[in-house]
């Protein structure tokens, strides 16, 4: 029954092609820990993390892991190719700009992409003239869009809207977010966003309004067009109202974006680690070989000492291992959680805990048998006492793992996670697998000849 479940889950994981995701230290890549240089409100911090996430997506990393841990952001990019570019991009401060809209394009339409490309390159296409498909080279979307590191305030850029359905070609920025004093979403018959600017900003904003009267100006945060309102006045005196068919969430989001521009979250790089692929592989290989050799030694020792019961211990380890593999693969696949070096060492360490559960039980059985009890009833009867010991001891490990997971970050946290997981597996395997198998062995295979379990009985003792 238990074998069935474990076997099924392992088969499921294997057939789905899930394999554990390896951390930076085990396959090479980049790991960056960032912390805001100054104190920032929580929602802005979250927003900044969101921006980092967008940038990482733009780089195209297979299994990025970006987590907030207290007031730090831990970014792991295993296997990333261009490491320096990744490090630079991640740490860059996000900027809010106001850019007049030159033209729109549909990112899915090749014709419009080609037209937009020409606009960006400065060669104007006369209005209404169709682009000849045969002579034009196909412009792919990624070629067209401005890469983050070229997204300068002074450049003409091609960017997407926040939903990704609309493309914009935008003129150089006329205003940056620093001039914003306050932005808030309010409800006045409909949801609107009030924007107030400082003196310098009021002047620049009016200049922009004059130049772009009755045209659209895009509000761009870190390469994403968040909104593109039409200017319908020329004199704002530092107070602007952005209206549209916003719902509450949209209006609040826009206000947050504008406030973010006013006080961009600047990050300090607390810890930057780049690991070459060869070094990562070396560590991984060393860890795997060491783990296997360790397992083999433990297996041999258990066989030598406990005979048949040693075999049960080896089977328990195998079942735990299969379960663990499934869980790690599942975590990697669904949560993007990578197996780190600390986690891997935690697992090697947990071999000891798993084996100990077996030993506690076997020693109890041995003791009962020495007291003169039959092997099969000893196997049945000792489990309660042994399992209670296992539970109490494992509970202490779980408390430790929980505290460490909650209160620490980085390496230690990864270790705590795997310590917790393996401890739970230990409990489950002890109860659902080890006991039935030991009882089975005691009933069927021992035939009341305890020597097979590495035991001597009371009667044999007399002859010693």
């Amino acid at each position: 029954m238990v074998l069935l479940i474990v076997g099924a889950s392992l088969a499921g994981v294997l057939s789905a092609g899930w394999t554990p995701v390896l951390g930076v230290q085990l396959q090479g890549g980049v790991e960056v820990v960032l912390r805001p240089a100054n104190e920032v409100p929580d929602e802005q911090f979250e927003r900044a993390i969101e921006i980092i996430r967008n940038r990482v997506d733009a780089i195209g990393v297979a299994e990025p892991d970006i987590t907030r841990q207290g007031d730090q952001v831990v970014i792991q990019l295993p296997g990333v190719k261009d490491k320096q570019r990744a490090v630079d991009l991640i740490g860059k401060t996000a900027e809010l700009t106001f850019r007049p809209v030159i033209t729109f394009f549909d990112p899915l339409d090749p014709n419009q992409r080609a037209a937009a490309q020409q606009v960006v390159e400065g060669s104007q296409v006369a209005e209404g003239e169709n682009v000849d498909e045969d002579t034009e080279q196909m412009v792919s979307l990624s070629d067209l869009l401005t890469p983050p590191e070229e997204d300068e305030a002074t450049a003409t850029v091609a960017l997407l809207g926040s939903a990704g359905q609309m493309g914009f070609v935008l003129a150089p920025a006329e205003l940056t977010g620093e001039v914003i004093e306050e932005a808030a979403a309010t409800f006045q018959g409909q949801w609107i966003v009030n924007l107030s600017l400082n003196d310098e900003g009021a002047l620049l904003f009016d200049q922009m309004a004059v130049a772009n009267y009755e045209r659209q100006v895009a509000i761009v945060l870190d390469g994403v067009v968040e909104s593109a309102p039409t200017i319908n006045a020329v004199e704002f005196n530092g107070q602007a109202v952005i209206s549209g068919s916003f719902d509450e969430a949209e209006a609040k989001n826009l206000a947050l974006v504008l406030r973010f521009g006013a006080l961009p979250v600047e990050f300090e790089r607390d810890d930057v680690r780049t690991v070459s692929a060869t070094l990562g592989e070396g560590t991984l290989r060393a860890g795997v070989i060491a783990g296997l050799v360790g397992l083999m030694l433990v297996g041999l020792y258990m066989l030598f000492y406990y005979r048949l019961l040693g075999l049960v211990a080896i089977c328990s380890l195998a079942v735990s291992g299969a379960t663990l593999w499934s869980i790690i693969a599942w975590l990697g696949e669904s949560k993007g959680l990578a197996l780190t070096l600390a986690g891997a060492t935690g697992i090697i360490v947990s071999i000891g805990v798993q084996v100990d559960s077996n030993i506690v039980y076997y020693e109890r059985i041995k003791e009962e048998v020495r007291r003169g009890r039959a092997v099969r009833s000893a196997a049945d009867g000792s489990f309660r006492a042994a399992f209670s010991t296992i539970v109490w001891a494992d509970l202490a490990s779980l408390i430790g793992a929980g505290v460490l997971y909650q209160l620490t970050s980085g390496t230690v946290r990864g270790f705590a996670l795997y310590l917790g997981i393996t401890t739970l597996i230990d409990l489950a395997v002890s109860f659902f697998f080890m006991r039935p198998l030991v009882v089975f062995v005691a009933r069927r295979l021992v035939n009341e000849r305890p020597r097979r379990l590495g035991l001597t009985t009371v009667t044999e003792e007399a002859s010693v």
Partner: protein
Amino acid sequence: MSFSIRRLYRGDTSWDFLGVSRRVLTGSIVAVLICVAALFIQGLNLGIEFEGGGVWEAPASEDVTTDAIQKTASNIGMADARVQRITGGEEIFRIRGELPAGETAESIGSALAETAQVDSESVSARTVSPSFGDEVAGKARRALVVFFILIALYLTLRFEWKMALGALVAVAHDIALTVGIYAIFQFEISPATVVAFLTIMGYSLYDTIVVFDRVKDNERSLSLKTRMTYSDLANVSLNQVIMRSVNTTITSVLPVVSLLVVGSLIMGASSLQEFAIALLIGLVVGSYSSIFVAMPLVSSLKGREPHWAEQERNAELLSESNSIENAATALAADRYDRSAPPRPRKKGRKR
């Protein structure tokens, strides 16, 4: 000798652990004092995660010398950089120093790669800001305090406060010894080492709980019937769990030894090495302390309780025979007594 090993194998020993522990404890105290002294005099060799700075690792080849790398490092403004050639497995250069102003980890990495005659992609680098280390250390300290409080509560609820105290003293002893050895030999402390220290704490507690669990069990089942003193009870319990402790320690140490030998000596992965050393020391010390530190402390605390103090006086009056022998016979008598009809015995334990 062979006789006693056979007895050990059968789990049929009657050693006077507490008696031995009095002598061993003196050694423990001295060792802890030395370690604490070393900690204060020499301090710890903290890794860059705690001190800030940068570390670069580049593959080493025969025709590049450490001096050449050192020279390159000086030229780019890292005169006080430490350059090591790490052998065993794949050879690498390890360069540690402060990141000079105006340089990036990458620019230094490529300069080093050029000198080492390797591709700059094969250089691993790590830079850490100094404030980060403070934070890591601070978090670890806070987690540790919370952990100690929770464990103390847990053990008090599960057993009693005297046992909680015994267990925590044993853990403190283990950590003191392990950290002390790091101070004496100036091994580098990294987050991996901290993880190892935490594991040691876990193991030590786990071990101690197994011992205490047995003592509690025996306290319920044996003490009312017999004239055992608490130290007899402790001795009997220790004799019962000694094989478990020995076996568990062996099976826990085997993977760690293989991590140390295979992982670092043969294949040269230094990040595994730091971890394994701490674990190895901690595991051995941890199982030692459960038996020789935690239990004697609890035993002497419990011995002062009125009930046990009286037992003690009675035992002194009846000093005609060795009390351990007594305990063993009492236990043996108890076994046959209880195991004859297996069913009721089980129920009795359930209560």
